[in-house]
């Protein structure tokens, strides 16, 4: 069974596009929360084929982009501690903090290793028992369970030099904050697919119930997104608001209970600072006291110095969906992937990066 090809099929896409076009009468603004969804929308030029009544806006679902400079500075401070090995997903390497980036720290001698999995980070720790290995824990609910698993495994295997700097964030609280602010009027939410694989569909119900906004959980292929838009438009036209799962092959209503239990065992919610949005209660994860020997915040005395924000960078506004990269005076001029000012241009899922790499809307033929 090929789980991908069918969901990129031009005929299936065509059928959905026609139906959306004939069904959509009411102008709607739909937010795609997840950076992965933004990339698909741009990579396949989906905005070109949707009717003018459907407006797509990107949200804060890029874990690298929403990490505040204060947290990035902590990361760079850790990298500068002699003897420390930093293990990280590649996404963080070029993101600029107040003064530096991991890439620059590496050029100055920091030992930074790009890994594709926490299992690789554990291997590095096991292979270098005399040196502390700190894994940079970024990501939403899709990724947090894998970090929790690595901590449990370090515990089982008695690996004493492995620790995690938890910068993990939770999705429903930030959506609630955006909706509560009333800054951008949304008529539908394209809910993140793989976050929902873990948390299920129930955590999104408050959106439909308290804000009367339709929610559909979508997969990541172009046909998935079109199906999701089709279902959202259908709800809007029928004046409904409920949570539906379009991504039925990948998401169950109850989510992944094993992963959720593991997350709860290792982490607890805490306030977290989101770029452009300030502090949001209960939106971050920190290691529980029982696991503090794996917590880089407890092991190291992290003193990163004062925080600077780059002048003119509107990443925060872009993340909240109130501006697009085209509104930014630095976009393409001073801020490019080679010399990024803000993280939205660096991250492979950043909105600014997507606009830059794949072109503006409606480039047409």
């Amino acid at each position, binding site marked *: *069974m090929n789980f991908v090809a069918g969901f990129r099929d031009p005929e299936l896409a065509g059928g959905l596009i*026609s139906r959306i076009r004939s069904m959509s009468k009411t102008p709607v603004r739909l937010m795609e929360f997840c950076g*992965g969804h933004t990339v698909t929308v741009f990579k396949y030029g989906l905005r070109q084929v949707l009717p003018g009544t459907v407006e797509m806006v990107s949200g804060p679902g890029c874990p690298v982009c929403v990490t505040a400079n204060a947290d990035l500075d902590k990361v760079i401070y850790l990298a500068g501690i002699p003897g420390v090995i930093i293990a990280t997903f590649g996404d963080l390497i070029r993101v600029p903090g107040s003064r530096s980036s991991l890439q620059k720290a590496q050029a100055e001698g920091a030992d930074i290793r790009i890994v594709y999995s926490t*299992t690789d980070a554990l291997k590095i720790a096991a292979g270098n028992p005399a040196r502390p290995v700190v894994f940079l824990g970024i990501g939403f609910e899709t990724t947090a369970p894998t970090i929790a698993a690595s901590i449990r495994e370090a515990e089982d295997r008695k690996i004493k030099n492995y620790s995690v700097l938890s910068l993990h964030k939770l999705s429903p609280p930030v959506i609630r904050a955006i909706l509560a602010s009333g800054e951008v009027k949304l008529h539908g939410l394209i809910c993140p697919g793989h976050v929902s694989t873990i948390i299920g569909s129930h955590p999104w119900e408050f959106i439909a119930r308290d804000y009367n906004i339709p929610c559909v959980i979508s997969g990541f292929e172009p046909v998935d997104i079109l199906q999701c838009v089709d279902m959202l438009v259908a709800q809007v036209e029928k004046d409904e608001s409920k949570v539906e799962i379009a991504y039925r092959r990948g998401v169950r209503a109850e989510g992944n209970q094993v992963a959720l239990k593991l997350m709860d065992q290792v982490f607890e919610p805490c306030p977290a600072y989101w770029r452009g949005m300030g502090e949001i209660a209960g939106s971050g994860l920190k290691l529980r006291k029982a696991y503090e020997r794996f917590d880089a915040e407890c092991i190291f005395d992290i003193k990163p110095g004062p925080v600077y924000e780059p002048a003119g960078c509107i990443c925060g506004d872009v993340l909240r969906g109130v501006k697009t990269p085209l509104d930014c005076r630095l976009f393409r001029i001073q801020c490019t992937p080679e010399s990024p000012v803000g993280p939205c241009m660096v991250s492979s899922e950043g909105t600014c990066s997507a606009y830059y790499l794949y072109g503006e809307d409606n480039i047409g033929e």
Partner: protein
Amino acid sequence: MCLAIPVLIKSIDGKEAEVEMGGITRQVSLFLTPEARVGDYALVHTGYTINILEEKEARETLRLLGEIAALDERQD
């Protein structure tokens, strides 16, 4: 960052599995899906399976979408 790809589980050794996708094989951890069996399809994210893919749901979705596409063609 939410990249997760569908793979086929070829063999299992304790909490680890060898999985295959498009001719590429890889070792992943089954820590988050202890119910996984050889022959299952799973979603893999950063070296861990996060879900067993529902094959029949996938087929059903494709079938439904196929009907929509067929309807569209008939109306052309």
